[in-house]
């Protein structure tokens, strides 16, 4: 671009074109949705099979896999941030929304553990319905921020499944997590990946 005398129409055209270029900076490739979607799907189904079909009492230990995923995610995000050329307001807000989600999930686990330890009352039946409520929140906000309908439809699905899970026997609730992962993170994750690839090839 050379510095030259501009007409008012040209000014408007430049503003519009540059704002569009910045706006189309679609940085969500769906990778973390797919990663966590598949990990939680696998753990939910795995727990159900181990506990209720194979009758292994240590079936819940399958969730240790999520800790390995956290380590992988940390390395992945660090590498992605190094490659990032631009930081949008959407990136920043969504980063905080997901951080708030992780803190809430962690606190929910701590709160439940303490209730059980201090009162001896078993609140296990609350675990999965509340997790489903929590999954819905950041997914819903992300869907709106990214203007990506499959995500917020998936979020609504999480909330519906939360009610369904609350009506089911505790043993079967975990299967609702697997269903929620498919509709809220796995399917939208593949669609996000396709949109990202399409966006990159059109730049």
């Amino acid at each position, binding site marked *: 671009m050379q510095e030259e005398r*501009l007409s*008012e129409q040209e000014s408007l055209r430049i*503003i519009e074109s*540059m*704002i569009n270029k910045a706006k189309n900076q679609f940085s969500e490739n769906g990778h973390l949705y797919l990663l966590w979607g598949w990990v939680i799907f696998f753990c939910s189904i795995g727990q159900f099979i181990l506990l209720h079909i194979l009758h292994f009492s240590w079936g819940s230990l399958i969730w240790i896999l999520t800790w390995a995923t956290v380590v992988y995610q940390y390395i992945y995000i660090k590498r992605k941030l190094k490659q990032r050329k631009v*930081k949008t307001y959407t*990136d920043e807000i969504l980063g905080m929304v997901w951080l708030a989600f992780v803190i809430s999930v962690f606190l929910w686990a701590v709160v439940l553990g303490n209730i059980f330890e201090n009162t001896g009352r078993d609140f296990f039946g609350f675990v999965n319905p509340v997790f489903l409520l929590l999954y819905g929140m950041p997914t819903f906000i992300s869907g709106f921020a990214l203007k990506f309908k499959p995500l917020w439809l998936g979020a609504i699905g999480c909330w519906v499944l939360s009610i369904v899970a609350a009506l089911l026997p505790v043993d079967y609730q975990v299967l609702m997590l697997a269903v929620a992962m498919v509709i809220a993170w796995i399917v939208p994750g593949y669609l996000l990946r396709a949109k990202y690839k399409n966006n990159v090839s059109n730049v």
Partner: protein
Amino acid sequence: MDFKELDPILHAQLRLAIMSLLISVKEAEFTFLKEKTNATAGNLSVQLNKLKEVGYVEIVKQFKNNYPQTICKVTPVGINAFEEYVKALQTYLPGNP
């Protein structure tokens, strides 16, 4: 019809393009601006410095993986100037009082 004066700093092709990009994001690397504006590194650098001199943008130079990195960000003064520029531009549009 009352035409408002257009800010000469912003009323230049590359500087206006830089400001329009920066106004839409939180911060951007020099390479991002170069890619989106198709400007040469030299020209982009000169225009960024002009914007920096008037306080419209903030430039932070740092190292990332041992490579120099230039991060650019629009300042509140820059946001205000851009808004005023757009308002002034509107007075030139047909049908404006």
